[in-house]
């Protein structure tokens, strides 16, 4: 069993009389892409800041890559893109990356090549000698991402990495996350954009009022919890009733049936069954339950306010 990338136990932060994080217990494995989801004010950013040593926990414990949070040598193996990426805007992009690489204690030659490589990767090579002051929001986010990856980290924290980006930029971030995963880097992703999480994450935790209220494997989401829409005519009530053996939540209206399946593998059987019942089948469309539906189901319509 390898050392977990992140492990927290009852991590708690109280600001005045308000508990921002009530008791966060979670474990993220190395090489995993982990999504951290929750409504505004749920304590996501505070949790991340505690892990990064920016905010001191009121109680509880946590470790990154096996070392207690705040451990200096471990920080050289961790990357971070903050949510409100404001950087030293009087530096050029190259100087900015140089500064952060030096603070990471990187070797000068390695830093030089790594810097050019990353500028290229985030599409900023032509702007390397421009002052960050002149950068757009999206460009700042790209250079911030490059900064987070300078040290080839074993663990990267990305707080809303796509919030300032256009669709091209978002695709870039998605691709980079995929590359990181292939390289064995653990990515801890904090995002509002559920579609982003859906395509990039292995596992997601839902957090509300500073507690993890549910953790799901994205794979199981794809495999097990499928919804299917059946468009058919000539269905008798008995035939509809008979579908219950494969799933639940059967809703029927106007020649259209929607039901939740336990197993995606049931689809061929359902097709055969409907044909045997003399129904005219026009379409059977599996549609996965979206993360959004689970999100709303988990935190409630009020967004956990």
């Amino acid at each position, binding site marked *: 069993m390898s050392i977990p990338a992140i492990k927290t136990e009852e991590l708690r932060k109280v600001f005045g009389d308000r508990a921002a994080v009530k008791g966060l217990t979670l474990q993220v494995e190395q090489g995993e892409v982990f999504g951290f989801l929750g409504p505004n004010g749920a304590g996501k950013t505070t949790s991340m800041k505690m892990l990064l040593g920016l905010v*001191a926990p009121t109680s509880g414990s946590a470790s990154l890559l096996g070392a207690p949070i705040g451990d200096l040598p471990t920080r050289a193996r961790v990357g971070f893109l903050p949510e409100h990426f404001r950087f030293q805007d*009087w530096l050029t992009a190259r100087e900015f990356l140089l500064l952060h690489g030096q*603070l990471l204690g990187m070797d000068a030659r390695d830093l030089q090549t790594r810097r050019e490589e990353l500028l290229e990767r985030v599409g900023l090579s032509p702007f390397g000698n421009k002052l960050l002051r002149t950068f757009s929001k999206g460009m700042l986010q790209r250079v911030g991402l490059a900064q987070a990856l300078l040290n080839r980290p074993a663990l990267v924290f990305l707080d809303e990495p796509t919030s300032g980006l256009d669709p091209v930029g978002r695709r870039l971030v998605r691709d980079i996350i995929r590359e990181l995963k292939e390289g064995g880097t653990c990515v801890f992703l904090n995002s509002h954009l559920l579609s982003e999480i859906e395509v990039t994450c292995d596992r997601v935790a839902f957090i509300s009022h500073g507690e993890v209220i549910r953790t799901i494997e994205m794979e199981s989401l794809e495999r097990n919890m499928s919804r299917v829409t059946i468009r058919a005519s000539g269905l008798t009530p008995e035939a509809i009733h008979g579908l219950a053996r494969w799933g639940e939540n059967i809703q029927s209206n106007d020649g259209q049936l929607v039901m939740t399946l336990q197993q995606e593998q049931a689809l061929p059987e359902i097709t055969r069954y409907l044909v045997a019942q003399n129904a005219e089948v026009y379409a059977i469309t599996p549609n996965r339950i979206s993360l959004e539906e689970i999100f709303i189901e988990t935190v409630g319509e009020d967004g956990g306010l």
Partner: protein
Amino acid sequence: MKSISVLARMTFQEAIRRRIVLTGLVLGILFLILFSIGAYLISTEIQRETFAEGGAAYQNIMRTEMSNFLLMAGLYAVTFLSVAMGALLGADTLAGEINSGSIQTILTKPVRRSDVVFGKWLGFAGLLGLYAILMSGGVILIVFLQSDYIPRNMLTGLSLIYLESLLVMTISLAGSSAMPALATGGMVFGLYGLAFLGGWIEQIGTLASIPAAVQIGIVSSLIVPTEALWRRAAFEMQTPLASSLGMSPFGAFSAPSLLMVLYAILYLVVVFAIAVSTFNRRDI
């Protein structure tokens, strides 16, 4: 160690890029031009008057006293400008970066927070040093060119003025580790004003032999030893005659003891330690 020098250089670079150095330089040169014109006008006028009366010895004394007076007036203004520079540099740094969030990517690097504070302190100390060399050096050079006069204990005096600006910068940095920039600036100038007023009460008290007033001055110097440093610097550099004649607006009648200078150094170290410990505990 390496990260401290990286951060000190960053601080320096920031001051250059954000045109703080340029502004200081332009205003400093303007100040020196003004000072040299003023000094020239005053000295020619006084020399014309003194040449009309008295012998060579009298003229010599008058020239020395006049040059010293002009020099002290210039350094007095320079001290105030250095203090303002120190206060402003320190006030915005940590508070501003915490506020904007730009400090987050720095503090998550393998860097101790005390290194960040120390690196910034060193960078500012370097800037204030350059500023002191330009301004104090300029004033002394102008007086020297006009009347061949060099003050006594020059290096001691200038070091004390530099120490005063470092002290104010350190207080400002400490404030900035806990409070917003504006509140810090207000606090620093408030403290400086308190010391300034206390110093005057002490001087008047000494002159008029009012022990209670002298006590007030000493207490205010213990609260903030900035003014005491200036008065010690003035005491070191002014002519013995000026000291014994009594008050000049820019000189010192009652000189703070060397113990007060040591106290100021200790004060600086303690304030720096407070800055580090406050910043260490601060949630970013």
